[in-house]
Structures are given as C-alpha cells and as structure tokens.
C-alpha cells in the first residue's frame, strides 16, 4: 500500500507543521508514505469563486502527480472532497479519466476507516472543542450532520479519544458554518466575520483551550479573528494532536 501525501497550498505556505505531523503520524502507523514534490493547489478556491475552468490544468497535474499511488491522503477535508467530488467532472471535459477521485482520503477518514488503529502514543492533557467543518461533515461524512435523523457518530472524536489525557467537547450549534468559504470570506466579509465571531465564541463557551479541526482553512479564518479580537482560545489541527510526542 503506497500512500501519496497531499499537502494543500495554504498548509504548504502557512501551516507546514501540519504537513510534518501528517507525515509522522502516517509513518508511525506503519504506512508507506511519500510526498510527490512540487504540489501547489487543488483548484478549489477558483472553483468555489466561480472559475472552475481555471482548475482544470491543476486537476490534470494533480492526477498525474499521484498516478502511481494506491491512496492519496491529505490533511484537509475540504480540499480532498473537492478532488473527490469535482475532478471527475472537470477532467471529463478534457476527455481524461480521473484516477484520483476514487483513491483520495482525508487523513482522519483514512486513519479511521482504513488504518483503524486501536491505540496511539499521543498525549494531550487539554480540553479541546471540535470544529466540525461543513465539507468534512456534509460532503465527507466525518460526522453525523446535525440536520439528519441518523445515529450520532464523529470520526474526529473517535480518533481524539485515543489520545491520553484529552477532554473532548463540541460547541453549541456543533456544525454551523464558521463563515470561511474561500472567497466568500472576502466578498461577504461582514457576514463571514460575524459567522466566525459567533463560532469562536461558542467554542470559547465550552471552556476549551483549543479549537481542533480537520480543515486548516476554517482554523485559519478563526485564528485571524482570535488574533484580531485577542480572544482567549487557540486553534490546532487534529493531526498535530494525534502526532504529539512523535
């Protein structure tokens, strides 16, 4: 089983430690993981803004970069699900059969559903509040969406439960959007900012020290607000906790 690590652009630029933790975590679980060089962006920001066609070249490049891997695994539910749900359609326009869509996983999904570890070495003696991201929840099915009448499950909570000393909570309105949404955050900044502030406040109200999520984009948005307003909470990507001590 050969796994290609997918590092989205903003993790590459802003949160490389998330990439490092992802690599270490997969390695520690005995996964044969490699990083195909010179990755850039999956194209989601352009597509969500309405310029899907500008993602076609990127999709072709991405598909080639990962063609020899059995799995593609990345630490960003939103980017992964963009590849999974949209590349087929984008590449069909180019008469190119997409190879990535069937083998790409968000790292939490991959560890939870494919690797299935029963224990982790990690320890994180803190109270954390889960950021259930929209695309993680509603498109990738990482947890039961609050709108649906289906039994509760949460893959992030399951994985965090393997960490020693951690206390896990979820905010009120557990999967309401934090307001990032790519260029939405800029174009509709007033509403986006309000959504982000409401979200951060609900995380704070749980008494947690950290907001933990599987999407650095939501965390980046909330960090920007926390820093602007000097709020008493920090953000952290879930792999950084799962890989703690490695």
């Amino acid at each position, binding site marked *: 089983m050969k796994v290609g690590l997918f590092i989205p652009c903003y993790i590459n630029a802003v*949160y490389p430690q998330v*990439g490092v933790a992802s690599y270490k975590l997969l390695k520690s679980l005995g996964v044969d993981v490699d990083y195909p060089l010179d990755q850039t962006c999956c194209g989601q920001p352009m597509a*969500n803004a*309405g310029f899907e066609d500008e993602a076609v070249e990127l999709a072709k490049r991405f598909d080639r970069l990962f063609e020899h891997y059995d799995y593609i695994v990345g630490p960003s539910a939103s980017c992964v699900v963009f590849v999974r749900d949209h590349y087929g359609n984008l590449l069909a326009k180019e008469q190119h059969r997409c190879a990535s869509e069937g083998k790409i996983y968000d790292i939490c999904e991959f560890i939870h559903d494919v690797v299935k570890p029963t224990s982790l070495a990690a320890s994180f003696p803190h109270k954390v509040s889960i950021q259930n991201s929209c695309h993680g929840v509603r498109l990738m099915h990482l947890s039961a969406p609050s709108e649906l009448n289906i039994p509760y499950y949460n893959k992030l909570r399951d994985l965090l439960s393997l960490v020693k000393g951690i206390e896990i909570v979820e905010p009120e309105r557990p999967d309401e*959007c934090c307001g990032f949404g790519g260029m939405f955050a800029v174009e509709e900044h*007033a509403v986006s900012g309000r959504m982000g502030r409401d979200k951060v406040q609900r995380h704070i109200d749980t008494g947690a020290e950290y907001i933990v999520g599987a999407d650095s984009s939501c965390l980046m948005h909330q960090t*920007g607000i926390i*820093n602007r307003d000097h709020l008493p909470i920090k953000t952290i990507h879930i792999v950084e906790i799962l890989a703690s001590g490695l």
Partner: protein
Amino acid sequence: MSTKHSIAAEKFQENRELASWHDQTLWMVRAKRDKISKEVPEWEKLRDMSCAIKQYSNSHLDLLLQEFEKNAIANGAHVYWAKDADEYCSIIHHILEGHHVKHFIKSKSMLAEECGLNEYLEEKGIEVVESDLGERILQLMHKRPSHIVMPAIHIKKEEIGELFVKEMGTEPGNNDQTYLTHAARKNLRHKFIEAEAAMTGANFAVASTGECVVCTNEGNADMGTSQPKLQITAFGMEKIVPDRDALGVFTRLLARSGTGQPITTYTSHYRKPRKGGELHIIIVDNGRSQILADPDHVKTLNCLRCGACMNTCPVYRRSGGYSYTYFIPGPIGINLGMLKAPLHYYDNVSACSLCHSCQNVCPAKVDLADQIYRWRQKLHGLGVASSSKKYLSGGMKMLMEHPHLFNLALKSAPIANALPHWMVYNGLNDWGKEHEMPEFAKESFNEMWKNNKVK
C-alpha cells in the same frame, strides 16, 4: 469585491442587536425542526419519498395537470391556464370585475407576490386585504415579506404596536403580542365578512381528485372562503401531486420542516364550490415549464416553500430577507431568482458559504448548494463575474500551474509578515476588515521536504 447582497448584509449587521436577534430567533425555529424531525424514525425515508414523488409529478406535468383539470371541472370548478404573471393577474381581475367585487380578501400566496397581483388589482380600484397576520402587518406598512413563511420576522413588536394604534385603534404603548394579535383578529373579522370574494394559493393540487389543499395555522384561508360565495384559487403548476396518498407524505414533512410543528393547524381540502357559489382555479406557468429543460436546476421545482433552507442558512440568518434582491430570499431564492432573470438577480449568488446545510434540511431534497455552485460557474459566461475575483482567481491559477513560481512565492511570502500594519490593513484588504492576516511560515512544506527536514 462586493455585491448588492454583501453591501446590504453589511448594513444589516450594523444593528448588532437586531441582527443577533434575527439569527437566534430563526435558529430556534431550525432547532425545533431538528427536534421534531428526530421524533420520526422514518424521517430520511420520507424525504427520499417526497423527492421521488416530486420527480415523478414534475416529469408528468402534462398528464397530471390534465387529469386535475378534468376532475376539477367534474367537481364544478372553472379552470384557467395562465402562461405568465400578466395573464394570471388579468384572469383574476376579469373574474372579480364580472362579479362586481370591490372588497377582496386573500390568504398568503407566494405566487401572488411573484406576479405582483395586489398592485395590479389596486390599480384597477379593487381593495385587496391580506388576511395572514404577518402579511397584513406588512401590507399596512407598505413593506414586502422578508421570509416566505414568517413574512414579518424582521419587524419588532414596538413597530407593530405603533402601527396598530393608527390602523386598529389599539392602546398606545401596549405591545403585548397576544393583545395585538387579538386586535387584528377583531379588525380582520369585519374584512372577512364584508369581502365579496376570497382567494387562496395552494400548497398542493391533487390530480386524482381535482382538489386544492391549503395549509395554514391561522385559519385565514378558511375564514375567507367560508364567507363570500366566490372563491379563487391559483397555484404554480409544480404544486400538482398525483393523489391523496402523496399528501400523506407531504403533510408529514411540511410543517415539521418549516416551523417545527407536527402539522399545520388547518389542512383544508377544497374540492367543490360552496353551495350556490363558484370556485375558479388558475394553473400558472410563468416560466416553470422552461425550468423543466434545465437539468442543472430542474429540482428547484421540488420546492414545497416550507422555508427550512432560510432558517438554517447561516448567511440568511445574519443578513435578513431584504439583503437579497429577489422577492424570495435564502438558498431557494438565490436559485429561483437566477432562473427568473440571471442578469437581474446575480447579486445574490455571493450569499452562500457552500456549507450545504440547506440541502440536508430540505424536505424535498432540492440540491440547493450544488446549484449555487453551478450558478457561480455560469456568472463568467453571463458577463457578470466580479472582475477582482476573476483577477485573483486568474493570478492564483498562473501561480499554481507553475510550481517554481509557487515555490518562489512561498519563499518570499514571509516578507509579508513583516509589513507594517497600516500597509496591510488599509481598508482595501477585505480580509483585513475582519481578521488578522495569516502568518506565512519561514520555511514551506515543499522546502522542508527538499531539505530533508520532514522525518
């Protein structure tokens, strides 16, 4: 980089207290919907079934509408077909004129809003009275609904209290909701009694029986139609359902989704005219048959007009109904507006973070967020894409397609961290209006990997 929606939304947010009240009140309705839907174990199968029935009926409109017509005529009703808003309005005017109607009472109908019926009739000298309390308040205030089920959700009771002092002679300063509601009850009782004709929309039209079904909580549709002998009922043609068994599915979903009630107080089935009276039914197209040919958007015709997508939409709750330029706001309104006139209503397409919550609450499984995504892809072709967004997106494309440029950018990005605050947060940077900028890492992941630092 702004749209009419984003500008209006920013304004809405300026009144923090009202904006926050609006968000919390509508969230409460969503929470009620969650709770009551979870009391029904087969809920998700009901949604699947409702979607399947709508897909069946909307792909058999020609047959079902003719079946409806045949049965309705056999029941003693007059049936009309209206191609567009004008024809709909003029048919109604013609019926009213033929019966010398001067006072006309209406229950809530989104179709009438869509077609501008009230303005049309008032111009012809017919007094139109809205009988739904929320609609009546707005009519007296000369305002439009801001929500399709809770039309006056944006108005505070103090304003209503003041209005009623003037219009209904209530005690000044008494803004108690029960008091005001009962004052309107008394006031509208006279309007019901003096009306020479009453009109309703329809939530469902049943092909197998030729009856129209109307759901209300107030009982205003029935108060109206049980007084005068002349009843007019009009519906958009996607309201057709095959049979009463289908109603068994929809009546279980509608109120639970819309307001969190197990059913509306009244679910009225109008099959025949009243004894000695007349029942006129108008089937309206007004662009609907065109939507059938659009595979990307045909599912908008599944919509039951329950309003659940508005209540769950984090953007609607924080921007209010008036921030949208189409008369139906929220996720369904964004899509219906684009179907009506894209060059007129494209400003609403920005009002979505693509969180997809609307798709999960929709009782007829309209793929609302997916459709908004698709509309965004079409804005460029329509020539109305935001030029700054296009510029940003094009720049990103150029950068991302050339890894050496991307790597170069990653290398120089940390310099931005050191820029003086006034240069970054200068008012031109819309991200900077709400947030601090993210700090670029000194070494990108690409570089760390190349330097063998990832172990």
